[in-house]
């Protein structure tokens, strides 16, 4: 019996983010309702992220 650990996923690329991995999380800057995760690569390459609550597109 194996338990699934649900990892947070990058809001831009949907890739799971492992604990300890270089990433950032913050509540949507616009609405403050949804947690946005950005993986190291998406952040570095400045890939867009979109809030599923208010539609805000950053960075």
């Amino acid at each position, binding site marked *: 019996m194996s338990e699934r650990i649900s990892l947070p996923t990058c809001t831009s690329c949907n890739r799971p983010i492992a604990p300890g991995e*270089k*990433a*950032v*999380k*913050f*509540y949507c*800057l*616009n609405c*403050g309702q949804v947690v946005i995760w*950005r993986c*190291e690569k998406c*952040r*570095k*390459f*400045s890939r867009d992220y979109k809030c599923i609550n208010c539609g*805000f597109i*950053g*960075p």
Partner: protein
Amino acid sequence: MSYKKDYEEKDESGSSEKLVIAQLPERTILATGIRVGTVVKTKYMENFISRTRPDGLHIIDLDKILSRIDIAGRFIARSDIKRTVVCSAREYGKKPVEMFCSLTGAIPMIGRFMPGTFTNPLFAGHIDPELAIVTDPLIDAQVVEEASNIGVPVIAICDTDNVTSNTDLVIPGNNRGRRALAAIFWLLARIVLIHSGALSPDQQLDHSIEDFETKIIEE
């Protein structure tokens, strides 16, 4: 840069009647050169540019500047202001950052950012920030790098030639101009105070944009 500065003071083509901020005409904001970019345009900043002048300078969309300042202000108001660090290695950002921090309670970091400030807990000047705000992601690259290493969100004022790596919110704007930086931090301070309930939207700040300007000392 002096080429750009010559033009900065001349960007006043806006409506003198349209009020952007309570009692503040659009013309007053534009006169600071806030939307005057550089002759270089990066792909990251393309969406924020409204047009290119015949002299080659890219002009940033004022509505987008104001909208991003509003979003940044809301986010800062929700953050722990005592763990919000505002940085400027650029001389012209010095007074604006100091004024912003004295009004809001954020931590100013002026001049050279000592490596390890965020990442080395053994460093005497170590700070454990919740949010980092930079005046220019290129000049303040060390701050952005360390914030990225410890997973702290970054808000950056970005000009048309900036690369927005490791920036989580772009505030587009002229980040070279003395008066432009004063205007950006004045607007940001006002919005933070409004969103944190310390100022009502129809109220003015006790300080003018001019109070936020780094003064030029003639020798």
